[in-house]
């Protein structure tokens, strides 16, 4: 039992996917316009993540290594479709609020990242709890970010008019208006900038200041890499083959020169 709780603790605090590993930035920035939205998105992702970790772990011995990524993608996409249909049927409000970001859970790198880094190597139970922990960590981070933006940008919290009631109760702050930009697109980027700057300042563990490495094949540091690791690897490989080709040429030239001599 302790092992399982440790996975949950690891996901929520030690390796929080959003605040520490900096994975899945697209949905994080797009849906955190309010605390509720963040909470819904987080819980939807948690369901998909726990189920995908469970299924991928159960299939880990039968999926051939070469086609594992497409196989994972099919599993995740099927689960997302199931979740989307369930939301349409039973929680249409959530489906409307999150819109296109529900099908886009498929390409959320937390899910493929956990499949690759954890579920493909560990037992079913541990993988399931790893998914639950990571999902709850994501939910927690999204809810905090969403509430922060909602409070600054709309003066409400989880839809309750906090600023209004403060104005009524105290009689002060009459001229205080919410900073609308925080619930708009630029506010999302600004919030993230403030968060990462604070992490840098306080030297908190975070992938953005290089103090945390995770065990995804590419290094998994999305905010710094976004594929640039992949690009630089390829460039290095190309350079290597070029230099070896050039070396071959110079050897050839030398041989030619030798002939002339």
């Amino acid at each position: 039992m302790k092992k399982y709780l440790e996975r949950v603790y690891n996901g929520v605090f030690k390796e929080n996917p959003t605040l520490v590993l900096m994975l899945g930035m697209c949905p994080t920035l797009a849906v955190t316009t309010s605390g509720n939205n963040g909470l819904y998105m987080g819980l939807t992702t948690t369901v998909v993540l726990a189920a995908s970790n469970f299924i991928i772990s159960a299939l880990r011995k039968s999926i051939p290594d070469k086609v594992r990524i497409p196989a994972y993608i099919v599993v995740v996409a099927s689960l997302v479709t199931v979740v989307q249909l369930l939301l349409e049927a039973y929680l249409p409000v959530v489906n409307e609020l999150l819109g296109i970001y529900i099908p886009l859970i498929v390409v959320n790198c937390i899910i493929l990242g956990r499949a690759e880094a954890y579920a493909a190597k560990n037992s079913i139970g541990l993988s399931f709890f790893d998914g639950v922990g990571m999902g709850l960590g994501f939910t927690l981070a999204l809810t905090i970010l969403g509430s922060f933006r909602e409070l600054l940008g709309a003066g409400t919290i989880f839809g309750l008019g906090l600023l209004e009631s403060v104005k009524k109760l105290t009689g002060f702050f009459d001229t205080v208006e919410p900073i609308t930009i925080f619930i708009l697109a630029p506010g999302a980027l600004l919030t993230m900038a403030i968060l990462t700057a604070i992490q840098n300042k306080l030297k908190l563990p975070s992938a953005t200041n290089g103090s945390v490495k995770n065990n995804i094949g590419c290094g998994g540091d999305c905010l710094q890499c976004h594929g640039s690791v992949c690009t630089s690897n390829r460039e290095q490989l190309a350079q290597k083959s070029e230099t070896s080709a050039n070396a071959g040429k110079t050897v050839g030239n030398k041989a030619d020169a030798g002939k002339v001599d």
Partner: protein
Amino acid sequence: MNELLMIIIGSALVNNVVLSQFLGLCPFLGVSKKTNTAAGMGAAVIFVITVSSALCSIIYDQILVPLDMQYLNTIVFILVIACLVQFVELVLKKYSRALYNALGVYLPLITTNCAVLGVAIINVNKEYSLLPSVINGFGTAAGFAIAIVIMAGIREKIEHNDVPNAFKGSPIVLVTASLMAIAFFGFAGLKL
């Protein structure tokens, strides 16, 4: 014709895919260190999104709708995109060495670019037929290319600036992106 022009301006500038919808944020922040790599990435994205939105639109209209299986669109689209990217890479490698050298390195990164899947799904949600889908795909990708090239230009300048220690690295890039997003709000005033 007028309608198509509106789609292209709307998707490239008014609803910029990166700065207002946050799709494709990963390559936008990661591959924007130098202007020429950013331009290469932009070109590769334009190419792949235009082709994939055509393909996804055809498959949706000709296969999924007649069979009444629209609910499978997410699975089908992601597989089509993954195969398409591999296929394009192989074709370019074989037939157009110059194009492959220019775009090849960026192609594998595009499979995980959520803008590609996002455009395919937006096309379905808006019930665009083939031509508007392709135009919308091209416009969205052009918007991505514009944003990433501007970003790379600014980042090259930031290199020479005295940024406060805490803001070095990701934070200053995010602040820059935020200011760009504010600038792009200006396009919302366009009367279309």
